[in-house]
């Protein structure tokens, strides 16, 4: 009977692990909603940080993440295209693939230090460009791996059909292969956007933060996440409430983008 009992125990423990994992998700989301919604006012969205709102922070965070995407998405896609379509899977391709995987897991604070040395220290001041570059470096490897994996799923026959029609290699890639992999790549882009919009560590000493509304990327740039870190450590209740409100908005944005991405691929299958 012993082995049946042991079996039961293990199965119960495994189920318990899943229950624990899900409870933490709901616990975190519940606190965020409770604290966040009670601290949210209309003025939170219409005022800048200096007046107790997060308008400039939201605009700043999105601006940096969007510019970073505008740079990282084409570079990452071209790199993925080279890996899958041009490299003939040679040695260099496998080296690049592995390095890009390593880069994907590099500690984000180290990327912040690197960008600081190159783009902040020489100019003597924090700037939005440095923040954008740090986020771009974080995003590129994710896009590379998504593109690489999605292109691998495109059937060989499609490529052959393109060749039979007399298309040149890059026309086949642009008009057939990328189109076939469109949904998967879009999902990857959304997921990586959701990841970098919530990043704090690479922004701490690159863009730093700004209390005022600005679109000037050559100076300190407003960041929602850096503000949350600062606000949460202030002793006064008002700052903390604003930190909760900002955290709630940030999490809502991240989870909505994330779920949208997942929903798209689910529809396809």
């Amino acid at each position, binding site marked *: 009977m012993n082995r049946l009992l042991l079996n039961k125990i293990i199965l119960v423990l495994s189920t318990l*692990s899943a229950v624990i994992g*899900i409870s933490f998700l709901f616990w975190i989301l519940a606190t965020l909603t409770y604290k966040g919604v009670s601290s949210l006012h209309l003025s939170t969205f219409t005022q800048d940080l200096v007046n107790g709102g997060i308008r400039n922070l939201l605009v700043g965070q999105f601006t940096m993440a969007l510019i970073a995407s505008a740079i990282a998405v084409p570079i990452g896609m071209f790199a993925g295209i080279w890996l899958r379509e041009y490299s003939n899977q040679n040695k260099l391709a496998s080296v690049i693939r592995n390095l890009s995987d390593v880069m994907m897991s590099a500690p984000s604070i180290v990327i912040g230090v690197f960008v600081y040395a190159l783009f902040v220290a020489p100019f003597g001041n924090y700037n939005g460009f440095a923040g954008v570059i740090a986020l771009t470096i974080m995003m590129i490897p994710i896009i590379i791996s998504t593109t690489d994996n999605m292109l691998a799923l495109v059937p060989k026959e499609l490529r052959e059909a393109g060749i039979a029609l007399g298309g040149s290699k890059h026309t086949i890639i642009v008009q057939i292969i990328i189109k076939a992999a469109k949904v998967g790549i879009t999902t990857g882009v959304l997921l990586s956007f959701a990841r970098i919009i919530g990043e704090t560590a690479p922004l701490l000493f690159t863009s730093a933060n700004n209390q005022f509304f600005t679109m000037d990327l050559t100076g300190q740039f407003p960041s929602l996440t850096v503000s949350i870190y600062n606000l949460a450590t202030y002793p006064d209740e008002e700052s903390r409430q604003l930190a909760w409100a900002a*955290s709630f908005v*940030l999490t809502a944005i991240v989870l909505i983008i994330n779920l949208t991405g997942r929903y798209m691929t689910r529809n396809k299958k």
Partner: protein
Amino acid sequence: MGGKLFKNFSFFSATLSFFILVGIFSILFIYAQDSIHEFGFHFLGSEVWEADEDDAELGVFGGYIPLLGTMLSTIIAMVIATPLAIGIAIFLTEIAHKSLIKPVSIAIELLAAIPSIIYGMWGLFYFAPIIQSTFGGNGVGLLTAGIVLAIMIIPFMAAITRDSMNTVPDVLKESAYAMGATKFEVIKDVIMPYAKGGIIGSIILALGRALGETMAVAFLIGSVMQLPSKITDATTSIPVLLANNFSEAEGLEMSSMYYLALILFVVSFAIISIAKFYFLGKKVK
């Protein structure tokens, strides 16, 4: 003409990640030179971190405390996360009813999507007080940081473990069941040996992630330069020291910060490479 340009640009993009990695290593190495010259490998074992008030080029700096803090918080996280993540993977592959697999998977993956700063906020205001009333101490410290780190890496570990458990052929499992094996025996004697590489790989990858995690730990570890004597004691870690003090440092202290960043970068590079090459295999389709 356009084709050539297209090809060249894709090649350039592909090599970019190589140059960025080399760039990160070189820049950290160059900026850490002063500190490396001054302290060499003793840096790793020295617990003194004292700037000279008059001259930024003087002072004594050692990385032992943040190194130890990084290792201890990571070890606590791994000890808690590993069994839970494997449990979740077993639940998802072997136990859960079909209708449960998807929602549970999505919930676990959403847990991974929550930004780390949110874990920090929540941990500081809701979790730290619980630790304080249960284990004593200040609330913030190694234990709190370790547990919240564990919650953060569980989804990641569980996802890779689940994927490698899913690769076990049904025929193998069915033949074990046909011999009268219980579910646990199938897991222990068929699935685990088959998926071993993937599971160890996922553990090592999660380890790399925990080592470099900054924001959640910054809220929770206490951020003080002191050696912990109990598990609930406050201390600091490399990412946290960098996050809080990097931009205000000068001279030799700054160089020592770059040294710490270099150590962190090299260690995570090594860990991730080991996980990829030895355990997860090269996933070239």
